[in-house]
């Protein structure tokens, strides 16, 4: 064990050293700045990272315009602004002009066909953007969706658009498992779960119509507890989402789950969504050990019964429990090596419901894809964000990956919502 740990440390040091060496190829001023605040993230060989900016606070999702300007959505206003624009004037990857607009906090942000879309926890807005210059016409603000459920838990709204003029919005369930009394041990699951009428799914709206709400929208998929990471896969023209699985299996059902099993269960799942999909929440969960979708104990499950879960939409990738997937991005760039093309990057925010077992996540993983389906095992792509030593609590994590975006040159951007650090990851530079 000790030997393995030492080996891991050595590998990390070597990788970090390598990353530092390659970044020093930039101008001396940049190298100096990087040396001072370079975060300890590790990347596969050949990749380097540059800190675009830091100190934005709760930097959630982000998007990069065609001219390279980065737009970041904040969950806590910075100087009264909820959307931050980062402009890199000299091409060194670092932002040298920072401005902001939008006086609401939120998570979702994306760009499509000349419009920048951003969300608060209840509404979706859009603005005209000139992608050649990165200029946003803030006076053109339109509220396209309004009045969505936002009740403290899983309240953030993530956004993606298809090529047909539709926008997809996650409406997370304000609940763990739709119990009569949320998160109270022994409280039974409501059946049917009334939350699913207005939350716990993905809603589809028109991208160009104002003031839409539930009446105008379509419940595109249901049975999704909370989705923060979602993306429209343009290769196969379908929606993919990452679900945050339920909490408290060991704490509520110690007869069914050991402490360790409770830390690993249930899976965080990736779904390929067709219109009308039902992914099973709150009735079902994916059991990491049994490798199948089973009935939740709140609904009479015993880790054996499949029951009504048999005909729910099956996930296409399963990850260990509680890692908290906060961003999903299909890579369509040409900069990274071939194996990354059309594959999925996922930013895991990091766990908390594993305590007292060690916390996990706090990394960006990659899943290779072929024709819209996973073609190999997932692997860690970027790591070292938490800066953890063994046994640390979630609150002690230095950085927590939350958003992903692809730049016009094929670079990958990662945001952190703990301190508001933004990284630009490039290959072979």
């Amino acid at each position, binding site marked *: 064990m000790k030997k393995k740990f030492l080996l891991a440390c050595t590998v990390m040091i070597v990788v970090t050293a390598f990353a530092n060496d390659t970044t020093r190829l930039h101008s001396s001023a940049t190298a100096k700045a990087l040396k001072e605040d370079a975060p300890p993230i590790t990347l596969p060989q050949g990749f380097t990272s540059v800190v675009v900016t830091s100190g934005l606070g*709760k930097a959630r999702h982000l998007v990069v315009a065609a001219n390279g300007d980065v737009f970041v959505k904040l*969950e*806590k206003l910075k100087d009264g602004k909820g959307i931050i624009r980062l402009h890199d004037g000299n091409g060194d990857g670092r932002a040298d002009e920072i401005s902001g607009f939008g006086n609401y906090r939120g998570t979702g942000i994306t760009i499509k066909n000349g419009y920048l879309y951003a969300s608060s926890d209840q509404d979706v807005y859009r603005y005209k953007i000139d992608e050649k210059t990165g200029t946003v016409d803030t006076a053109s603000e339109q509220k396209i969706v309004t009045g969505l459920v936002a*009740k*403290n*838990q899983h*309240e953030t709204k993530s956004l993606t658009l298809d090529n047909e003029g539709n926008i997809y919005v996650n409406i997370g369930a304000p609940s763990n498992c739709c119990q009569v*009394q*949320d*998160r*109270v*041990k*022994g409280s039974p699951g409501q059946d049917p779960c009334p939350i699913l009428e207005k939350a716990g799914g993905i809603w589809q709206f028109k991208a160009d119509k104002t003031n839409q709400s539930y009446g105008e929208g379509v419940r595109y998929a249901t049975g999704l507890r909370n989705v923060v990471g979602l993306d429209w896969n343009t290769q196969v023209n379908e929606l993919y989402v990452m679900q945050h699985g339920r*909490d*408290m299996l*060991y*704490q509520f059902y110690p007869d069914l789950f050991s402490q360790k099993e409770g830390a690993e269960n249930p899976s965080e799942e990736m779904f390929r969504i067709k219109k009308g999909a039902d992914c099973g929440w709150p009735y079902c969960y994916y059991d990491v050990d049994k490798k199948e979708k089973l009935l939740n104990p709140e609904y009479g499950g015993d880790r054996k019964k499949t029951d009504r879960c048999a005909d729910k939409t099956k996930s296409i990738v399963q990850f260990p429990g509680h890692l908290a997937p906060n961003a999903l991005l299909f890579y369509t760039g040409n900069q990274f090596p071939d194996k990354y093309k059309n594959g999925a990057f996922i930013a895991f925010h990091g766990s*908390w*419901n594993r*305590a*007292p077992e060690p916390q996990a996540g706090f990394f960006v993983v990659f899943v290779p894809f072929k024709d819209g389906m996973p073609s190999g095992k997932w692997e860690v792509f970027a790591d070292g964000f938490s800066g953890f030593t063994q*046994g640390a*609590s*979630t*609150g*002690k994590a230095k950085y*927590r990956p939350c958003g992903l975006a692809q730049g016009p040159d094929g670079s990958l951007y990662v945001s952190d919502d*703990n301190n508001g650090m933004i990284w630009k990851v490039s290959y072979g530079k």
Partner: protein
Amino acid sequence: MYNFFGWQLVTGNLHLAFTQHSKHMKKVIPAVFVFIFATAFAIQQQPAGLKAAIARGKTVYENACLACHQQDGSGVPNMNPPLAKTKWVLGDKKALTKIILKGLQGGEIEIDGDTFHNPMPPQESVLNDQEIADVLTYVRNSFGNKASMVTMAEVKALRAKLK
């Protein structure tokens, strides 16, 4: 450790008392002795009770609280509030006890401009008066906190009042 700290505190007061104006000395000296005796008595009584309550409270914490508030009481950003050195834990005992008994919807707790969104599940049907007193005493004396005990009688009285 606590004993030592307690005596340090008493000597500190004594020193302070003697530095007062001398014409008050005659009144002050007996008062100081009474105070010393009372404190010494309390020290003999309380640490044993406190220590045992903290030990019992630790077990309750591990079963009912740790998953969300974490082993070191640091909580989870945006979700579950930290328990270390906040007015919510160190301040009014009744308000704190009410939170345990009745729970919270989520969003009510604000610490340094940050809010916490997960609901606090009510514990009134999960934990008894002794367990609530013990776990609060543990939380108020752990993670760098230092505050008075919460007694079973205090929890019992508040539970009855809130019914």
